[in-house]
C-alpha cells in the first residue's frame, strides 16, 4: 500500500486491545501488523505448557513483561493425575531468565515449581513485581525466602492453594527493612506460624498494601493490631477465628474492623466462633466478596452474617448455609453474581443431611438476577428445578453442578436429568463452562451438542451410554476448548471420528473410559500435531500391551512442540519421537 500509519501509531492503537484473541486477529492482517504486534506484545498466556516450547514463545514475542502458564490437567486437582506427571516450570524460567530480563509478572497454575526456580526468578528479573502460584507444588519456604530477600520491587506474592513444604515461618523475615512496595500477600495455604512481629512490621511499612490473606496460624487476637496498621485494606483473609470470648478482644477487633472503610472482600474464618462474628458487621455493607468455605460456622449465625451484605457479588460457602440461608441470600444479596456451595461432609454415609437441597439454588436463581456463575454440591436434584433455574437465569455463563452420589436420577421422577441439563444449555446461550452430574443418558449430549455453542469447557463424570454421547459433543460444540471425562462408556469410535476436532481444542482428558490402546496409536498417526499420552500405572511393559487393551487414563492435547521429553515411566506417548519442529 502506498500509505500506511507509522508503526508508532499502530502500536499505540494496538495497545488498546487487551484480549489475546483480538491481538491474534490483528497479527494476521499483514506482515507489518504481525511484526508490530510481535514486538509490542507484553502479556502472553500459555494455556498448556506443553503446547509450545519456551524458545518458540520467546522468538515470537521478544518483549514480554507478563506471562501466565498452566501445567497439569484440571483433574489433577482431584488426585486423578499421579505424582511426577510433569508440568515443570524450570525450563520456562531458565529460558526467560536469559531472554526476558525485564519480566515483571509470572502467573503459574498447576505447575511444579522448585526452590531453584524461585531462586532463579529472584536473581534474574530486576523489576520483578508479581508472583502468583495457584495450585502449584514442589517448593518450600526456603524458596520463598529467596523471593522475599531479593525482589526489591515485588508487589504481589500470592500462593493460593499451593502445596508448600512448610519448613518454618522464618522466610517472611527475609523481606528487608527497606522493602515497602507490597500490595498483595496471600499466604493462606501455609501451615506454620510466621513471625508475627515480622508480619506486623511488614504491614506497617507497606502503605500500598491492599490485599492480605493470612494463614490459619495467625490467631484472632492478633488481627486487630494488624488491621490498625493497614486501614486501607481492600481484601482481608483472617486466620483462625476462634477463641474464648473475651470482651476486650472482641471490642478491639470490632473497632479495628470499623476502620476498614475500603474493605470489599473477606475470607478465612477458620474454626469461626459465632460469638466473634459480629465484630465484622461494620464492614458488611461494603463487602462484595465473601469466602466462608473454610469455616464450620452454621445457621443461624452463618445466614445472619451473609444477609448483612447487601452488596455481595461473590459468595463461597459450605452447605451449612442450607436452603433457608440461600433463601435469605436471594432476598438480601440482589447483586450476587457468583455462588459456590461446597460440601461440608463429602463422604457422609449416614442418612442424608438434606437441609441443603436443590431448592436453595432455585431460590437464588429467582432472587439474584445478576447470577452468572454457579458451583453447587448437593445430594438431590430434579429436572423441574434445573428447568426453573435455566428459565430464571438465561444469563448464566458457568454452571457446575455436582450431585454427590454418582448417577443420581431426578429424585422426584426417578428419570435421568437429561431434560434439566438440556434446559440449561438451551436457555443459557452464553454458557461457557458446564459440569454435569447425576444420571444422564446420551440424550443430554445431544442437547449439549445442539445448543451449547459457546461452551468452552465441559466436565463429564459417570454419564452417557455409548460413543454417541461423546460424538455429539465433539461434533456439536463449536467453541469447545477443554473436555474432561471420567468413568463414561466412551470409546474409540467417537474419538477417531472426531480426530480433527481435537486439534481445535486445548486438551481432552479421558479416564476410566473405553478407549483402546490401538485407537490411541491410530489417532496419533493421523494427527501429528496432537500429543496423545496414555497414563498407565500398571507394571506391564508398553510394547506387550495388545491393541485392544483399554487405557486407564488418556490425555490428548494439541502441540507444536512435539511429544514432551519429561514424561515419567507411566506416561506413554503414542507418537514416534519427533524433533521440535520449530527448533
Amino acid at each position: 500500500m502506498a500509505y500506511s500509519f507509522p508503526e508508532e501509531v499502530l502500536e499505540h492503537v494496538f495497545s488498546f486491545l487487551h484480549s489475546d484473541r483480538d491481538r491474534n486477529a490483528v497479527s494476521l492482517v499483514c506482515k507489518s501488523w504481525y511484526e508490530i504486534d510481535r514486538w509490542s506484545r507484553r502479556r502472553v498466556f500459555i494455556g498448556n505448557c506443553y503446547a509450545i516450547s519456551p524458545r518458540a514463545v520467546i522468538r515470537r514475542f521478544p518483549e514480554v513483561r507478563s506471562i501466565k502458564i498452566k501445567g497439569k490437567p484440571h483433574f489433577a486437582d482431584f488426585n486423578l493425575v499421579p505424582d511426577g506427571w510433569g508440568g515443570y516450570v524450570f525450563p520456562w524460567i531458565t529460558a526467560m531468565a536469559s531472554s526476558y530480563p525485564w519480566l515483571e509478572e509470572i502467573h503459574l497454575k498447576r505447575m511444579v515449581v522448585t526452590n531453584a526456580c524461585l531462586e532463579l526468578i529472584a536473581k534474574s528479573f530486576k523489576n520483578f513485581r508479581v508472583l502468583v502460584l495457584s495450585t502449584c507444588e514442589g517448593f518450600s519456604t526456603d524458596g520463598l525466602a529467596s523471593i522475599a530477600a531479593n525482589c526489591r520491587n515485588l508487589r504481589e506474592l500470592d500462593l493460593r492453594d499451593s502445596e508448600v513444604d512448610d519448613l518454618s515461618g522464618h522466610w517472611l523475615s527475609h523481606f528487608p527493612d527497606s522493602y515497602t512496595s507490597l500490595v498483595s500477600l496471600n499466604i493462606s495455604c501455609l501451615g506454620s506460624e510466621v513471625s508475627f512481629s515480622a508480619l506486623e512490621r511488614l504491614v506497617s511499612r507497606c502503605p500500598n498494601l491492599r490485599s492480605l490473606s493470612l494463614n490459619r496460624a495467625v490467631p484472632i487476637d492478633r488481627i486487630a493490631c494488624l488491621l490498625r496498621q493497614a486501614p486501607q485494606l481492600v481484601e482481608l483473609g483472617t486466620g483462625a477465628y476462634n477463641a474464648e470470648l473475651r470482651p476486650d478482644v472482641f471490642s478491639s477487633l470490632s473497632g479495628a474492623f470499623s476502620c476498614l472503610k475500603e474493605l470489599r472482600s473477606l475470607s478465612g474464618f477458620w474454626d469461626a466462633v459465632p460469638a466473634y462474628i459480629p465484630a465484622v458487621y461494620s464492614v458488611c455493607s461494603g463487602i462484595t466478596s465473601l469466602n466462608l468455605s473454610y469455616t464450620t460456622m452454621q445457621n443461624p449465625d452463618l445466614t445472619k452474617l451473609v444477609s448483612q451484605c447487601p452488596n455481595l457479588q461473590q459468595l463461597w460457602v459450605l452447605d451449612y448455609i442450607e436452603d433457608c440461608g440461600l433463601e435469605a441470600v436471594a432476598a438480601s444479596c440482589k447483586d450476587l453474581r457468583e455462588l459456590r456451595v461446597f460440601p461440608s461432609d463429602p463422604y457422609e454415609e449416614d442418612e442424608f443431611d438434606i437441609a441443603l437441597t436443590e431448592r436453595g439454588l432455585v431460590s437464588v436463581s429467582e432472587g439474584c438476577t445478576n447470577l452468572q456463575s454457579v458451583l453447587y454440591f448437593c445430594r438431590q436434584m430434579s429436572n423441574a428445578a434445573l428447568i426453573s433455574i435455566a428459565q430464571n437465569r438465561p444469563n448464566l455463563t458457568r454452571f457446575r453442578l455436582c450431585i454427590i452420589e454418582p448417577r443420581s436420577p431426578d429424585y422426584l421422577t426417578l428419570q435421568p436429568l437429561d431434560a434439566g441439563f438440556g434446559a440449561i444449555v438451551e436457555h443459557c446461550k452464553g454458557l461457557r463452562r458446564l459440569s454435569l452430574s447425576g444420571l444422564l443418558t446420551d440424550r443430554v449430549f445431544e442437547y449439549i451438542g445442539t445448543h451449547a455453542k459457546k461452551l468452552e469447557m465441559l466436565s463429564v463424570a459417570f454419564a452417557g451410554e455409548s460413543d454417541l454421547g461423546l460424538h455429539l459433543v465433539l461434533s456439536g460444540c463449536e467453541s469447545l476448548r477443554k473436555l474432561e471425562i471420567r468413568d463414561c462408556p466412551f470409546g474409540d469410535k467417537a474419538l477417531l471420528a472426531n480426530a480433527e476436532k481435537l486439534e481445535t481444542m486445548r486438551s481432552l482428558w479421558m479416564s476410566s473410559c473405553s478407549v483402546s490402546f490401538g485407537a490411541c496409536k491410530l489417532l496419533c498417526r493421523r494427527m501429528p500435531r496432537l500429543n496423545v499420552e496414555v497414563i498407565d500405572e500398571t507394571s506391564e511393559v508398553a510394547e506387550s500391551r495388545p491393541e485392544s487393551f483399554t487405557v486407564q487414563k488418556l490425555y490428548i492435547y494439541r502441540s507444536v512442540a512435539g511429544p514432551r521429553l519429561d514424561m515419567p515411566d507411566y506416561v506413554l506417548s503414542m507418537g514416534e519421537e519427533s524433533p521440535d519442529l520449530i527448533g
Partner: protein
Amino acid sequence: MSPPLLGVECGTRDVAKVTGSSSLKESPDGLSLGLKERNYLGLSDCSTVDSSMVSGQSDPEAQVNKLNTKATELRLGLPGSQSPERGLDEKLLFPLLPSKDGIKSVVSGNKRGFSDAIDNFSDEKWMFHRPDEGKQSLGQGKFPTSAVINVMIASRPSGPQQPVKEVPPKPLLERSNGINLSGGENNAPAAKAQVIGWPPVRSFRKNTLAAASKDNDEVDGKPGPGPLFVKVSMDGAPYLRKVDLRNYCKYYELSVALEKMFSGFTLGQYGANGTGGREMMSESKVKDALRGSDYVLTYEDKDGDWMLVGDVPWEMFIDTCKKLKIMKSSDAIGLAPRAMEKSKARN
C-alpha cells in the same frame, strides 16, 4: 405431562451438526460397515489453523459453512481403506452391532419400538416436539415419544459390546445402573467404596474441613474452644442435623435446642410438601412429644454403645459423645441398665 423439550431448528446447519445420529440402519456386517474415512470438516486435510502459537481456534464461521455443505458422516477405519459409498442421507451414525436388545425399548413403557422409530423418521428433519412453553410439571418427567430420541436410545449397544464392562477395575462404586435408564431402583449398593477423586473437592479443602470437624480439644496445648460437632438424628425424620456441644453447658440447654431443631417434624412423618419441616408444629406439642413418653434422647459413646443421655456429668458426656439420636421410647428400653453399669464401671 412431559417436561419442556428442546426445540431444534431445522436449518441444515443444525442437521449437519447432529447428523448421523438420527437413525440406525441395521446392517448385517456390524462394525465393518463400509465407513469411509472423512475428516471432521469434510476437507481432505486439515491444515494448520494459524501460525500464531498462542491464538485460539480457527474461524468458526468457516467451519460452520463447511459443515453446511459437506456431509459429516462418521467414518471409521485406517487411512486408505475403501468402502462402499453410503448414501448421503446422513442418517448413519455408528454402525453399532445390531442386536435385538437394541431394538427393544429399554427405558420405559412409553418408548416405541425400533422399527416404529425408523418408519417415523423423516428425511433431513430432526424434530423434537416442542411442548407449550411455560407448562411444567413437577411430577411426571416422562420422556417424549419422539421417534428420533427413541432411535438414539435404542441404538445403545448391549451384550459383550457394553462399554461399561470394559472399564478397568478402578475403585468404582459397585453400581449396575450406569447404563440402565429405568430409574432409581438400583440406587443403593451395599458396600460403598470411595471413588478416587469423587466428589470433586480439592485436597486443600478436604484437609481443612477434616481438621476442623475433628474433636479439637487441644489448641496450643490447652483445652481449646474449638467446636464439637456431633450428628443428631431422629427416628422418622429424613435428615439429620449437627450440633456443637460446646454451645451448651448443661443437658437442659441441649434438650431445648434439640426440641427447637426437630420441632418441624410431625411424629414419624415428614412434612407433606417437603419443605424440610420449616413449618413449625407448636413447640409445646413437640416438647410434650419429646419429653413425654414417646421419645428419648440417646447417644453413642466412644465404645460404640448407645446410652441414655443424662446419666453422666455433662463434662464427661461431651467428652464421650459421638452421635446423638432421638429414639422412640419403645426402642430405648434396654439402654438404661447398661448406662448405669457403665458409669459405675468408670467411677
